[in-house]
């Protein structure tokens, strides 16, 4: 395994030998360590917590999209019996935000509100109803400002900018980079396709509404329990805004009732209840309403895209120019990273010899967008995979064959300097093509029925942390006790994906103990080593490595003592079935608890730590921090649809999906993640959208669970899942991610299937019935955006590719673009 530069001792060699003989735990499907608690209702989610003297918090939110706050009158609220404290932004003037470059949020708005739902005043009262009554008595005087709801307008900078930072006006981030010579690549192509596509924003819709409970401990410390995916980052934000040393702030992440990226930012309500708890010296809880969850958002960015690609006759690409315009909403959130991500992973699936990416993210007066499952990559993946389908048709090729001919080689470096490791996309495509009967179906089904194919890739954790530091991304401590119990400590957060189980299984594999002998302490900044959080599909790879290292070190200590006691070479020791024994004479051994006792007698208390830092990326240019990952997962899917020719209603009949996960840690959980990703992608493909009514109000079209359409049992088709295991040298046991990648092919596969069924292109997500029908009635048999605005790129960073003899840096200083900046 990587990250272990210590010399291989006989004890460690014994572990390697044991693993080579076969896994005890890895790849099997034991039940999740938290499953019985979940099925019996014993799991305590954040809103299930309560404390004596607890107060309830409600937040008054802006009902205007953009305005200056002129005055706030809270006197009537304060006069209401049962109201204990009223809090405004003035008490918390320090800004925060998830990215160091976007510290643009306040726990309560200071001077301006930037979207409908922006928090303005908070109340703590003896019960929820009183708090609700109180916020209704608060009068906020606003001076309305001209709002902007659309990035194509925002980019023109005619309104008062939402923020006083960013690249210019309402342009939060503008990026342009070119790898190789794209214009030359187009000139060398047999076919150049240009497409403009739109991916509407959508949201996570976790079943659990965000909730937090904060209190001041008797010794003055602050503790918060919250539904967060990133306790470490919340810890940093709370410490900053509340001006308390991190050592005196404790963040405990509760099990998340679904996250999907929606609980990855530090949130205003979390800081608000903490502040109220400090003010009142009482526990304070907030449970957001479903409407408020829609305002928290941080979901999928709406992205308008223009993609120009050169193809040779055999379907291979000569080069690609990808442009994206992101609608960021009111705040930064992860947006700078999201912007880069819309241009990062186009290159890791198919060979793109020359590549240019231009991206712009604008602020608009809507709830902030951020990371949703697939973070920034499903939108460009949609555009790319639909365009490949068009290219196949134009070139007279089968879309599956086209893809198989152009796969990026395993172990290669992409044009934009991403290091590909194991690469199982080919087998993924072959598997779904065979299982779905693709060759007998594509282009051959009766009118209204069709099949579509699409592929994807995703990172197994980001190569860099969110704030620059040289420390590990994940840490695990393993402590052995005399009874044979194994206590494992890690900051990771289980959001339902099963990371607790992965943690326990890795340790159990190394120590040869039962899962029942492992006790986990997780997601608590006071007791566990830092793990950066459950985002970017990083936990299995990073925590897995750290857990392996910690367990291996503990095993080493035990093995050393047991080898002496049994008088066998340590390399021959095996840890299995709660015993430690000589592989050449299995009767010669001792129970695991006895082994721990022997070791503890010799070495003292056994508590070992492990940690993990991802390998350095070959890309060294500015912006190279987004995209690198220890390993890339790959997925392919075929979707079969039945389109109602009269109404345009798309029914998905069946899905075949194959995912290259490297190596399953828990196969059942892997399949569960694939199915869940397919489900969520299908919702995005067919119906989910976070859209807004009008320029006048900027109110969310449907801040309700009912009107934000998501698939029910009726809309979910049967899914056949295939796992491709191509162990990656960078993965623990070869494992790669599975939580996000399988979502990505769904949207383009549905759009491609609709084309196969009714011969029209819907170049926009979601593919709703009215759009299908409009495309069927349109002359060009297409529905989608007609134009793409000038992104006003003035400088493009140029980086030589590996093939050009580059070294991963941008050797020349950025030079001015020849293209003129058009005035609007």
């Amino acid at each position, binding site marked *: 395994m990587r990250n272990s530069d210590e010399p291989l001792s006989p004890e460690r060699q014994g572990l390697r030998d044991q693993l080579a003989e076969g896994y005890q735990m890895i790849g099997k499907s034991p039940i999740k360590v938290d499953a019985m608690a979940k099925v019996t209702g014993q799991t305590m989610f954040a*809103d299930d917590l*309560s404390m004596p003297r607890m107060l309830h918090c409600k937040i008054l939110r802006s009902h205007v999209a953009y305005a200056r706050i002129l005055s706030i009158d809270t006197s009537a609220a304060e006069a209401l019996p049962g*109201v204990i404290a009223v809090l405004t932004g003035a008490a918390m003037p320090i800004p925060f935000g998830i990215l160091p470059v976007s510290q643009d949020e306040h726990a309560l708005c200071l001077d301006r509100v930037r979207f409908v739902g922006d928090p303005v005043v908070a109340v703590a009262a003896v019960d929820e109803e009183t708090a609700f009554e109180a916020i209704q008595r608060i009068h906020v005087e606003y001076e309305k400002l001209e709002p902007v709801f659309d990035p194509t307008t925002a980019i023109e900078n005619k309104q008062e900018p939402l923020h006083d930072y960013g690249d210019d006006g309402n342009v939060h981030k503008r990026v342009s980079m070119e790898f190789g010579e794209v214009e030359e690549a187009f000139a060398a192509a047999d076919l150049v396709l240009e497409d403009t596509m739109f991916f509407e924003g959508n949201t996570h819709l976790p079943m659990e509404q965000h909730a937090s409970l904060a209190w001041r401990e008797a010794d003055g410390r602050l503790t918060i329990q919250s539904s967060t995916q990133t306790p470490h980052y919340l810890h940093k934000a709370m410490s900053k805004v509340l001006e308390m040393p991190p050592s005196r702030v404790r963040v405990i992440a509760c099990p998340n*009732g679904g996250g999907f990226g929606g609980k990855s930012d530090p949130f205003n309500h979390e800081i608000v209840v903490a502040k109220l708890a400090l003010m009142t010296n009482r526990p304070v809880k907030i449970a957001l309403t479903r409407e408020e969850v829609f305002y928290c958002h941080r979901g999928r960015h709406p992205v308008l895209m223009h993609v120009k690609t050169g193809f040779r006759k055999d379907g291979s690409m000569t080069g690609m120019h990808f442009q994206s315009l992101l609608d960021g909403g009111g705040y930064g959130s992860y947006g700078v990273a999201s912007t880069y991500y819309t241009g990062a992973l186009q290159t890791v699936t198919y060979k793109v010899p020359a590549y240019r990416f231009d991206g712009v993210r604008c602020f608009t007066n809507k709830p902030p967008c951020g990371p949703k499952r697939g973070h920034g990559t499903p939108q460009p993946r949609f555009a790319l995979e639909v365009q490949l389908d068009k290219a196949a048709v134009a070139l007279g090729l089968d879309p599956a064959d086209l893809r198989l001919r152009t796969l990026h080689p395993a172990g290669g470096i992409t044009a934009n300097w991403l290091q590909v490791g194991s690469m199982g996309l080919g087998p993924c495509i072959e598997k779904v093509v065979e299982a779905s009967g693709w060759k007998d179906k594509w282009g051959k089904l009766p009118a209204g029925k069709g099949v579509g194919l699409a592929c994807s890739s995703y990172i197994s954790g980001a190569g860099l942390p969110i704030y620059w530091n040289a420390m590990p991304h994940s840490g695990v401590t393993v402590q052995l006790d005399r009874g044979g119990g194994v206590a494992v400590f890690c900051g990771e957060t289980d959001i339902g994906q099963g990371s607790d189980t992965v943690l326990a299984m890795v340790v159990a594999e190394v120590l040869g103990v039962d899962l029942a002998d492992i006790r986990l302490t997780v997601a608590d900044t006071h007791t566990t080593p830092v793990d950066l959080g459950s985002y970017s599909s990083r936990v299995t790879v990073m925590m897995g490595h750290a857990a392996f290292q910690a367990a291996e070190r503990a095993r080493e200590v035990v093995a050393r003592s047991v080898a002496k006691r049994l008088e066998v070479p340590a390399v021959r020791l095996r840890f299995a079935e709660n015993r430690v024994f000589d592989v050449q004479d299995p009767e010669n051994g001792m129970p695991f608890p006895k082994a721990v006792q022997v070791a503890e007698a010799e070495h003292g208390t056994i508590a070992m730590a492990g940690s993990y830092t991802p390998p350095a990326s070959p890309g060294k240019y500015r912006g190279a921090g987004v995209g690198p990952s220890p390993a890339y997962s790959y997925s392919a899917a075929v979707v079969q649809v039945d389109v109602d020719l009269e109404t345009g209603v798309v029914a998905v009949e069946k899905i075949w999906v194959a995912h290259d996960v490297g190596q399953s840690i828990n196969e059942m959980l892997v399949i569960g993640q694939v199915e869940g990703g397919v489900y969520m992608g299908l919702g995005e493909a067919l119906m989910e959208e976070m859209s807004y009514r009008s320029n006048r109000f900027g109110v969310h079209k449907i801040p309700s669970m009912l009107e934000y359409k998501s698939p029910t049992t009726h809309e979910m088709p049967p899914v056949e899942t295939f796992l491709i295991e191509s162990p990656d040298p960078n993965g623990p046991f070869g494992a790669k991610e599975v939580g996000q990648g399988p979502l990505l092919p769904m949207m383009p596969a549905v759009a491609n299937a609709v084309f196969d069924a009714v011969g029209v292109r819907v170049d926009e997500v979601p593919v709703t019935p009215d759009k299908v029908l409009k495309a069927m009635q349109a002359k060009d048999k297409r529905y989608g955006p007609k134009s793409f605005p000038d992104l006003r790129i003035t400088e493009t960073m140029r980086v030589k590719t590996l093939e050009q003899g580059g070294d991963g840096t941008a050797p020349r200083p950025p030079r001015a673009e020849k293209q003129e900046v058009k005035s609007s």
Partner: protein
Amino acid sequence: MKPATEPDSPARSKVQMILRVNGESHDVAFVPHKTLLEVLREDMRLTGTKHGCELGECGTCTILVDGVPRLSCLMLGLESDGHDIRTIEGMAGACGAHPLQTAFAELGAAQCGYCTPGFLLAAEAVLARDPTPSRATLVEELGGNLCRCTGYLKIYEAIELAAARMQKGTPDA
């Protein structure tokens, strides 16, 4: 900062009621405008029943009332008078988990686990009417419960496994 004073509206005075929950009678006092969901979670501390919207839009708060799946967020506590209420806390008995619970755990039908109590109770009601439900029956009967993690597939498989075991009379594997 002000001293705490309780609101004194007369409508907020509590009513006393005997609630029949999970086979036991409970003497519970609650304000009359509380939903059964709130009474269960806040006044009885039965937090196994979850909520996802409190507007009847997700099915998360599903409980059984006289054996029928109901949305506890749209039923007042007062309306449960004389009815037999079953929550997730009442599903496992002294001799262990219900076969549905075991099967949900074994097959990974609970990911985040938040919708799980509602699904389990809805599934129990399905099996009470139809011990060997078809996939189509499950799709129809569980159409009122949203899950954002599983895509429902493992939930169907778990119910089918539990149904098969209950038919054979074996509580689990």
